């Protein structure tokens, strides 16, 4: 029993690390632009299919092909913000949400048209590799790498945001865009580039999450909704909170799946989210 519990919690931590990767980049784009991008998860799908295409064409390992996919996603993020989101940023929330839902339809079905709807696996040299801790804890190496990647990303975000001039400017734009402009910060430029980086990070997340997971064009929504829950539970602009909330979702999902039985167990994180939103709308870790 305890062995199962430990294995489950560890598995949940690893899955949560994957969610955290996506949630942190979602947090970055949300905080700099004030826009919740419902197509965020679809960019992850896009990154994964690009990795698949590069694997098929040139036999590039997904880890290696990020060198190509990162710039591609960065550019598409920049284009998304500059051409579609910036013009509507001041209109009603409903409109902005609709627009990003429109982008979701375009991406999901664009991918469907190009790659077809069958779930596919991207073969990777790492796929089957296991790490064995002690005598009973089995960990899939790619998941451990993804978890480590999420920690590294969190660390990197913290260093950049809290300890560099660029980060200071991004925080200024987030806290008071008008004052930031009066300080000589080129606000549209900061927003566009940061949004691009946020989408670009999806390339890295995609590479880290791909080994051993089948991908399909319609998966993106799930990769928007769960990170979005982490974002809200974490308190929107508190990156540590977002990270912890993503981990918490991973762990509760794993516990639910193992101990509550199958699909009903997957409800646990959603129920947790609704509870948190009702009881602690300011976020789990922030003082009211």
């Amino acid at each position, binding site marked *: 029993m305890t062995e199962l519990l430990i294995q489950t919690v560890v598995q949940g931590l690893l899955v949560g690390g994957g969610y955290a990767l996506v949630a942190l980049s979602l947090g970055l784009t949300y905080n700099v632009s004030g826009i919740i991008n419902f197509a965020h998860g679809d960019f992850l799908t896009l990154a994964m299919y690009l990795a698949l295409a590069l694997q098929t064409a040139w036999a590039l390992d997904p880890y290696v092909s990020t060198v190509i996919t990162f710039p591609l996603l960065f550019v598409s993020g920049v284009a998304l913000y500059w051409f579609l989101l910036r013009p509507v940023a001041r209109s009603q929330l409903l409109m902005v949400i609709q627009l990003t839902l429109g982008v979701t339809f375009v991406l999901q079905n664009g991918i469907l048209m190009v790659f077809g709807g069958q779930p596919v696996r991207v073969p990777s040299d790492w796929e089957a590799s296991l790490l064995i801790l002690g005598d009973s804890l089995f960990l899939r190496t790619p998941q451990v790498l993804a978890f480590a990647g999420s920690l590294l990303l969190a660390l990197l975000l913290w260093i950049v945001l809290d300890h560099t001039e660029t980060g200071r*400017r991004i*925080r200024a734009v987030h*806290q008071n865009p008008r*004052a*930031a*402009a009066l*300080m*000589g910060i080129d606000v549209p430029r900061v927003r566009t580039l940061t949004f691009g980086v946020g989408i670009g990070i999806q390339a890295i997340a995609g590479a880290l999450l791909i080994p051993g997971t089948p991908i399909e064009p319609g998966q993106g929504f799930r990769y928007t909704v769960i990170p979005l829950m982490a974002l809200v539970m974490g308190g929107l602009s508190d990156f540590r909170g977002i990270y912890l909330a993503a981990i918490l979702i991973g762990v509760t999902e794993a516990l639910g799946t193992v101990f509550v039985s199958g699909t009903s167990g997957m409800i646990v994180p959603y129920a947790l989210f609704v509870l948190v939103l009702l009881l602690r709308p300011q976020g789990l870790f922030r003082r009211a």
Partner: protein
Amino acid sequence: MLEVAGLTAGYGGPNVLEDVSLDVEAGELVGLLGANNAGKSTLINCISGVLRPRAGSIRFLGEDITRAKPSDIVSRGIVQVPEGRQVFPRMSVLDNLLLGGTTAVARPRRADRLEQVFTLFPRLKERRPQYAGTLSGGEQQMLAIGRAMMGGPKLLMLDEPSLGLSPLFVQTIFRALRELNAQGLTILLVEQNLNLTLSCAVRGVVLERGQVALAGTSATLRADPRTRQAYLGL
């Protein structure tokens, strides 16, 4: 130094400013006066580039800046201290100040200027690590001015710096402004407080419903009954 000619501007609706012209010479402290909604803030927002004028031109140091980006205008040396202070609340006082000098032109001189700001407002030095949102209104105003000074302005524009402050803080702020002006800084001061402004400005311009109603030296404006009328909106 600053030449505004025939400026017309508004926010989607009717014109808030109509055909306003105004000059500021180097080293002057000019007061921009007028009642609420006279268009004072609109004018300096046009100068800062955060609002596009509908007509007219703005020149600074002989160059046209009418359509320049706000960031470009700051780099050229016009810095605004906005109404309501607009500090970055969840950042330290130090971070706020450093952000004031974030342009490429200002960054190399940040360390020196930080010392100058701390000399001008020793209070800010004490409060360095504190979140700006936790400061009192007067301290936030000092921070907003200090932050603007970090950009190394040639022309400093202040929008209602005395608004909502206790008389003691108002004195501190205005003493600092006089001191900066005495050191050679050109200042355009938007204020509702007529006497206070005229006591430290050389010249004043009175706006009334978006147009220049009166202009002249502080002494003439003080003596002219129309100045007060413009304030009461008569």
